[in-house]
């Protein structure tokens, strides 16, 4: 048991790539928490996908022992939180488990949109915030300017900001001292009834569900019987420990401490993030304020390319859902694609991560249909239907009106790209709410329809600003607008998986872009193929894919028989990546690519 005054719990908030993971690694390494030989870059990013893309998806925790300059031994608990907007919710709940934050800003870049989004969450959670200026080893580092910017834009004192190079190790010692000296110790009462926060939970194939907890009051020990207050279930603690970052058993967890328990819980679903854990007997009466569960905002269909893999897909999706309460799924049948699932995600990155995991970890090739947001369809009889799939759009004669979700988007961008950013937002039906300057960078705030953002807004933003813009958003609510369902017909047959909801004023442009794209994406066939976009019965755009005119191998002699046969086999395998609609084969990537717009 460690005295409360010798515990510090903190998180690191940063815009992506500002060095959060590198700093965490350095803190862990310099305190010998991990032996040098076990050190691999980005210790806390454990999933392949995380390491590969250099992003953090799930929060991760590590306990660090540190003997400070004052000679006292401290326990530092670090929660590494995701930086991406899709996982903002994950950030917010992790923040509730700690008392302070290191605000890491790349001193060659300055404050960015996710810096803001994340630091506001830290402020909301009443954190003490210690600014850290990172990458001072780089010649482009401008600490004074960035410190000033932090004060201007965020409004916190940055005069004492620590200057760090997470790469070379400069300032790491100062950072550890600042954690001890500037961040508050947790509060709590060892003798009060047990009160612990369920911070996160995930499934481990050996141990079952692992629950990350932050103890507020009281003590948890192995074999204790604890109650989850939201549903009253009681579990015996099988294993209790901390992350260093590997699991290490401890005898108990007391107030202020962060660690894990396992308790023969079968499914992640049986645990609720934000729940209060107390003892079965003589427990606390007062639960912590719960968190509201994360709501999926982007939906799409996932179908196996090879329809015989449907059961494997079900299995994969169910396993992934076990670990990810924010990922929803229900079975879907498409006339075009057969059996699959309609899945809900926190955002596009979340969608991509899940899709990648299914394809890689479960080895199932997928067709992903157009992502869609959740529309509210108000029927004439007053009923409201949540529309997750354009294919389910009810008959218009029964519909009174539609509402779509909107977001508040914050974009930071160097002045020279401002014009392009404004044009992009305007083109996506945005309404400008604010435009201010933070140093040489403009900060624009737009009210935008989520459906205009969901697909390729971020890609477009990156390309028009050469990667210099940063972007973050939050959902604001629903608003009525003139929305229609656009369907797509290939060779006169409707392809349900390509239908989408669009704003009436943008329908022609979208339809045109879509049929042109499809014309490029669908390979030529032996006959010509009309491709049309339509609203109801009315065709709004049309292209014709002309017939294949030449596809013949010029030379084919004795030695080529083998080669040609193998080529055909390869093409057969390639054809599995196609879907047949009537007589037409459509490559699976068309379902996503057709929706990317170039403007």
């Amino acid at each position, binding site marked *: 048991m460690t005295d409360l005054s010798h515990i510090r719990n903190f998180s690191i908030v940063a815009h992506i790539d500002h060095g959060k993971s590198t700093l965490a690694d350095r803190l862990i390494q310099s305190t010998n928490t991990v032996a040098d030989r076990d050190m691999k870059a980005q210790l806390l990013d454990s999933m392949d996908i995380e390491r590969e893309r250099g992003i953090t998806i799930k929060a991760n925790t590590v306990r660090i022992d540190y003997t400070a300059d004052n000679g006292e031994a401290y326990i530092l608990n670090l929660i590494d939180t995701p930086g991406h907007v899709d996982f903002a919710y994950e950030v917010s709940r992790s923040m509730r488990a700690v008392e302070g934050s290191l605000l890491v800003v790349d001193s060659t870049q300055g404050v960015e949109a996710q810096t803001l989004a994340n630091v506001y969450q830290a402020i909301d959670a009443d954190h003490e915030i210690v600014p850290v200026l990172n990458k001072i080893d780089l010649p482009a580092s401008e600490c004074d300017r960035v410190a000033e910017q932090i004060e201007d834009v965020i409004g916190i004192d940055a005069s004492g900001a620590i200057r760090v190079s997470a790469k070379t190790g400069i300032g790491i010692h100062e950072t550890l001292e600042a954690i001890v000296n500037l961040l508050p110790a947790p509060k709590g009462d060892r003798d009060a009834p047990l009160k612990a926060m369920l911070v996160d939970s995930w499934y481990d194939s050996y141990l079952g569900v692992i629950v990350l907890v932050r103890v507020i009051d009281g003590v948890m020990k192995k074999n204790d019987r604890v109650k989850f207050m939201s549903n009253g279930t009681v579990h015996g603690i099988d294993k209790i420990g901390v992350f260093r970052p590997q699991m290490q058993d401890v005898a108990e967890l007391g107030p202020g401490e962060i660690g894990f328990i396992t308790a023969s819980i079968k499914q992640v679903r049986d645990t609720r993030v934000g729940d209060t854990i107390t003892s079965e007997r003589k427990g606390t009466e007062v639960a912590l304020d719960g968190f509201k569960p994360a709501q999926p905002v982007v939906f799409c269909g996932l179908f196996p390319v090879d329809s015989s893999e449907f059961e494997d897909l079900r299995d994969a999706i169910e396993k992934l859902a076990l670990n990810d309460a924010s990922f929803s799924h229900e079975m879907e049948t498409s006339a075009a694609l057969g059996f699959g699932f309609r899945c809900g995600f926190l955002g596009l990155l979340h969608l991509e991560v899940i899709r990648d995991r299914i394809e890689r970890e479960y080895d199932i090739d997928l067709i992903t249909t157009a992502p869609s947001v959740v529309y509210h369809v108000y029927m004439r009889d007053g009923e409201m239907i949540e529309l997750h799939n354009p294919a389910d759009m009810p008959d218009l004669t029964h519909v009174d009106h539609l509402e779509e979700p909107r977001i508040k988007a914050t974009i930071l961008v160097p002045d020279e790209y401002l014009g392009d950013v404004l044009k992009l937002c305007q083109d996506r039906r945005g309404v400008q709410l604010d435009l201010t300057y933070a140093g040489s960078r403009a900060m624009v705030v737009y009210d935008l329809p989520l459906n205009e953002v969901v697909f390729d807004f971020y890609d477009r933003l990156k390309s028009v600003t050469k990667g210099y813009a940063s972007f973050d958003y939050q959902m604001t609510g629903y608003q009525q607008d003139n929305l229609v369902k656009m369907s797509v017909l290939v060779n006169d047959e409707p392809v349900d998986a390509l239908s989408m909801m669009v704003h009436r004023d943008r329908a022609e442009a979208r339809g045109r872009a879509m049929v042109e794209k499809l014309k490029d994406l669908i390979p030529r*066939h032996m006959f010509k193929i009309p491709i049309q976009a339509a609203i109801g019965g009315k065709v709004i755009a049309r292209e014709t894919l002309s017939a294949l*005119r030449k*596809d*013949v191998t*010029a030379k084919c*002699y*004795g030695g080529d028989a083998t080669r*040609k046969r193998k080529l*055909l086999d390869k093409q057969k395998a390639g054809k599995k990546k196609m879907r047949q609609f009537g007589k037409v084969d459509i490559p699976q990537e068309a379902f996503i690519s057709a929706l990317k717009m170039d403007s």
Partner: protein
Amino acid sequence: MPEDWENGGFGLYIHWPFCQAKCPYCDFNSHVVAQIDQRAWADAYVSEIARIGAETEGRVLRSVFFGGGTPSLMDPDVVDAILTKIRATWPIANDIEVTLEANPTSVEAGRFAGYRDAGVNRVSMGVQALNDADLKALGRLHSASEAMQAFDIARSVFDRVSFDLIYARQGQTLKDWEAELRQALGLAVDHLSLYQLTIEDGTAFGDRYAAGKLRGLPDDDVAADMYALTQGVCEDTGFAGYEVSNHARPGCESTHNKIYWKYGDYAGIGPGAHGRLTLGGTRFATEAPRAPAAWLSQVRQTGNGDLCRDVLSLDDQFAEFLLMGMRLRDGVSVARFSQLSDNILINKINGLVEIGMLEYNTETLRLSQQGYPVLNAVLRKLLED
């Protein structure tokens, strides 16, 4: 009951893997070396003929084809040793065709009489283009007039002479090609191979193409027009196409290549050579190592130049039978394919007949005029699961 291969007959392919220079478009197994020990090569070919002869005893040999590489770099003595051994090994068809591929330079033309005396009765010359600028762009070592001189010698030495042209070249228009084609038909003896330039991976052209530096190639539509024009003009001149890229006066088709396309048996000897042999009721695909030195030393050390001998399943045979046979104007025999496959093709065939790609009756299945230029697409449909 006769074995399936007998519908195509039995031939022998001999691969000579050396060239004077490597042409930038060519992905044949050809190598440029400083020295060739012609005697050693002759011995190796002779030893391979003996080995295969023992397994195919009594078969009537209908054709021999010296391909390359550039077989016109062979000493006539080597060709003579090989043909002598062949005659001692198999019964020879009365009308046996013995073809040798020749590059059209004066040096090589000087050997033509020697080849004839050894038993070669047909040459196939790689003329490729009829103007110097394009020959240069194709990396050829001969000029158009040198090729014409070599060609004249060939006509005077051999009864049967074919030549190759490559079209759909960089910067070539439909009009350019029509003029060149008409000129070629004026020269032609009895057979012509007209290939559209194919950009092969792993060649200099392939690399240039991938880097976006091979400019001025006709697009697919122009290439399709060129193909259609070629078919029409050749037919009108008495050189109807009998295969995708091959044209002949009636009765002058290449016996050897028809063995491939009719899916007969053929032994392949030499570096990188492929063979198809039915032995003891099983059909095998054979393949030799591609590197000349590796092949030569393997033959010397083990007495067997093959790298592998794989059993062809009935499905494999069926696929090969179709993808070779459908190249022929006459198509394939329905009786034969029903024996090779219990696959229900009839729906696929009917679908393709409906869209005008195939012609089908109780005896033959063949491509329509319209289907010919998109043969690969038709095959993909026919062979898809």
